[in-house]
């Protein structure tokens, strides 16, 4: 809470927390008296604050910054004129591993996950730890197909929510880190696991699952935020007789994948949750699963109350290159052919950019945004026109993009100031191999392999795409294909980082680099911003170190 600096926002906040300890309200007053010492209470983030997150840029309340997932900060203190003076305010070293976590910052506390699934609460002013919850993930826990890391928590009211490698969803008391409830989401011994940040909505925690590489049957779940009881589960692979089941041959649906491993978006007015789904199983051998394999590699709109699928759009039917569509769906209300339309856009792993109507799922526009060699283009309904000889083969077949895709889990960012969607892009091809695939519980279910083209023959970009057309505004080349996201700010900047450890700020209009710093280890996380003591901070990570940056 930034106290006197934001009087207009303070009033409704206090009202929203009525009935809770008065220390919450008092903290703002204490801050205005002294900037060198203050007292915080644990964050209290009612649903109303989450809905209005964009009106509270001093906080970072949900994974992608708001339910619309723009990952845009309205803070403007750090701008093009002064960013060159940016310096490290504090650093925090997590337990060993690589930080992929997006921090949540609320009321002076930063909530962060550490590898593999632990949670810490830090004093956002100094980085000093307030508490740590150790998930005690057993060494035997399975995480087939991904690294033992975690992408962040969700916060709602006075609880912090995390999914663990061994597929537990856990609610922690935000003040102490003690467990309020812990629910087993699925059987980890079958390859179900969790690394994505949950999404908190009104009284519910929405949680996705990983494990398509082990032949799971994917789903999206909603849990009662207070008790941990499951409210609904919707499978992303339909059972026989259900709509879409005709897109699966034989029993292949049983191990059809369709993971939901990254955090989706939410439109409170429409009551729809937008969540991307991953690849069908097995990854590279599609012979055992003839058909389009709905709802894999798709964007699915779920009714938030019931979990019912209201619409879907499949980007890559019958995928055989592991091009998950779990990328962040960004929700926008934009003028489109003469009227304001509710849109959802996605820069997909398959190298195409898509604009959809988010009420109906109608395909409005799409185009290639990165090198690809597998499709001639998209037809009028957005379905790819697949080129021949682009399947994985026994001898290996070179196709662009690589398995890791033209982009991946790292977040894009949308700036309303420029109308650009900023996308971290991996310019990389791969040789895809096809192999046999036999389902064995708790084992890899891959059906082949891949060898990416690396070194001097692959590189990365931050690309600025016109959000309506997907046309390239500018691109900034990176030495290696990145694994870290970007964040645009009202200061006219785009923050990002590189796989070689460069943290940087680009001019959002031109892509010109205005600040950079070598952080000493690969960066693999998404930037955020918050404000404390009336000063903007930017958070970026590299290796297992979280850096909080600010102006002197």
């Amino acid at each position, binding site marked *: 809470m930034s106290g006197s600096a934001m009087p207009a926002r303070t009033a409704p906040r206090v009202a929203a927390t009525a009935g809770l300890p008065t220390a919450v309200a008092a903290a703002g007053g204490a801050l205005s008296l002294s900037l060198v010492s203050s007292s915080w209470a644990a964050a209290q983030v009612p649903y109303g604050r989450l809905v209005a997150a964009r009106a509270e840029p001093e906080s970072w309340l949900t994974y992608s910054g708001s339910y619309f997932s723009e990952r845009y900060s309205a803070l403007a203190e750090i701008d093009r004129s002064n960013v060159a003076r940016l310096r490290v305010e504090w650093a925090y070293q997590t337990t060993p591993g690589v930080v992929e976590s997006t921090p949540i910052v609320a009321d002076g506390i930063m909530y962060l996950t550490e590898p593999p699934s632990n949670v810490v609460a830090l004093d956002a002013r100094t980085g000093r730890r307030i508490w740590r919850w150790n998930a005690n993930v057993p060494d035997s826990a399975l995480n087939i197909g991904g690294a033992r890391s975690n992408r962040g928590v969700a916060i709602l009211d006075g609880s912090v929510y995390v999914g663990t490698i061994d597929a537990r969803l856990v609610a922690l008391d935000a003040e102490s880190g003690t467990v309020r409830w812990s629910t087993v989401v699925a059987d980890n011994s079958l390859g179900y696991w969790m690394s994505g940040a949950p999404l908190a909505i009104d009284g519910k925690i929405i949680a996705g699952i990983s494990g398509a590489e082990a032949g799971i049957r994917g789903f999206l779940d909603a849990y009662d935020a207070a008790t941990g009881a499951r409210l609904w589960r919707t499978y992303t692979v339909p059972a026989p007789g259900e709509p879409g089941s005709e897109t699966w041959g034989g029993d292949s649906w049983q191990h059809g994948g369709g993971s939901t491993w990254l955090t989706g978006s939410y439109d409170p007015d429409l009551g729809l949750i937008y969540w991307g789904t991953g690849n069908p199983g097995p990854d590279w051998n599609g012979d055992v699963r003839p058909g389009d394999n709905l709802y894999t590699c798709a964007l699915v709109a779920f009714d938030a109350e019931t979990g019912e699928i209201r619409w879907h759009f499949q980007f890559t039917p019958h995928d055989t290159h592991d091009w998950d569509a779990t990328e962040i769906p960004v929700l926008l209300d934009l003028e489109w052919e003469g009227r304001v339309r509710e849109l959802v856009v996605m820069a997909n792993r398959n190298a195409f950019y898509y604009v959809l109507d988010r009420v109906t799922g109608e395909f409005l526009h799409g185009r290639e945004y990165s090198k690809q060699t597998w499709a001639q283009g998209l037809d009028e309904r957005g379905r790819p026109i697949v080129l021949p000889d682009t399947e994985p083969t026994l001898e290996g077949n070179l196709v662009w993009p690589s398995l890791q895709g033209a982009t991946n889990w790292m977040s894009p960012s949308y700036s309303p100031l420029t109308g650009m969607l900023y996308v971290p892009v991996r310019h990389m091809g791969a040789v895809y191999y096809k192999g046999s695939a036999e389902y064995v519980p708790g084992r890899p279910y891959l059906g082949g392999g891949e060898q990416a083209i*690396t070194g001097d023959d692959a590189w990365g970009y931050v690309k600025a795409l016109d959000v309506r057309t997907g046309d390239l505004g500018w691109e900034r080349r990176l*030495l290696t294909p990145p694994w870290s996201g970007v964040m645009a700010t009202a200061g006219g900047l785009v923050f990002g980082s590189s796989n*070689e450890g460069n943290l940087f700020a680009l001019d959002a209009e031109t892509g010109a680099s205005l600040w950079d710093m070598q952080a000493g280890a690969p960066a693999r996380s998404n930037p955020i911003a918050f404000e404390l003591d009336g000063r903007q901070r930017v958070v970026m990570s590299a290796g297992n170190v979280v850096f909080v940056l600010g102006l002197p």
Partner: protein
Amino acid sequence: MSLSLSHGGRRTLSTLAALVCVGVVAASPARSTAQGVASLSDRDLESARSNYVSICGRCHGVEGGGGEGPPLAVPVLHRAPDETSLLQIISQGIPGTAMYGTRWLLPDELTQLAAYVRSLAPRSGSTVETADASRGRSLYERGRCAACHTVGGFGTARGPDLTSVGLRRGAAYLREAVLEPEAALPRGLTAMPLGFADYLMVRVVDESGAEVRGTRMNEDTYTIQIKDARGVIHSFYKPSLREIEKQFDRSLMRSYRDRFTDEEVEDLVTYLMSLTGPSRRPVS
């Protein structure tokens, strides 16, 4: 124990299968009777290769040549010099790196996979029985190799250190490096991110118009470090450079094709293969 270098003879499918068997026994001495040679069928070999391709190949290369991860087709793996450490790394991963563990593998599969990784190592030492390491050592001196290379800390470090090159490279690789050095620049030796060419020749023109030539020692999105012919390191901020040219088809090293006979090349390669690490003073 680890699988030692097998000198003489090229790798064939049958020797590969034999090595896999040896690897399994070596990797699980306590179970050597339970997991004997007889039980390693073609199917086990196929399973090991299948696991390798789908799990390891993505980063380490389908043939072990490396990529985003380090090459595994080397005589000795630095992080896994023995079977215990290899099994540990494959099953548990390496914290703080992209190397994740394969906790789901069954014990037999794990040992088979480890053996398969070992089998990727180059097998041949010298190709001609008459080749002689001591003659090779004289050639190393006559060829002035030490003007650019170091062995045991002596020489000049313009190019790769060769102190343990016999553990790192096979004869075929070394022969090509001597005869056709520009054909394939080494990887994984300098501080460059994995997969990038080491000792890449670079020419830059700085803000003042001054030109610097040398080999790339490291690079990131914003900076590049170049070592010139005198051994001086130049560090440049790339956005301020006027020009940066990477010469992928060149090598700092000249070919010895016209300077050594075929026999001499084999002697030199044999000498290089005998370089297996720094000498250590025994405990007194």
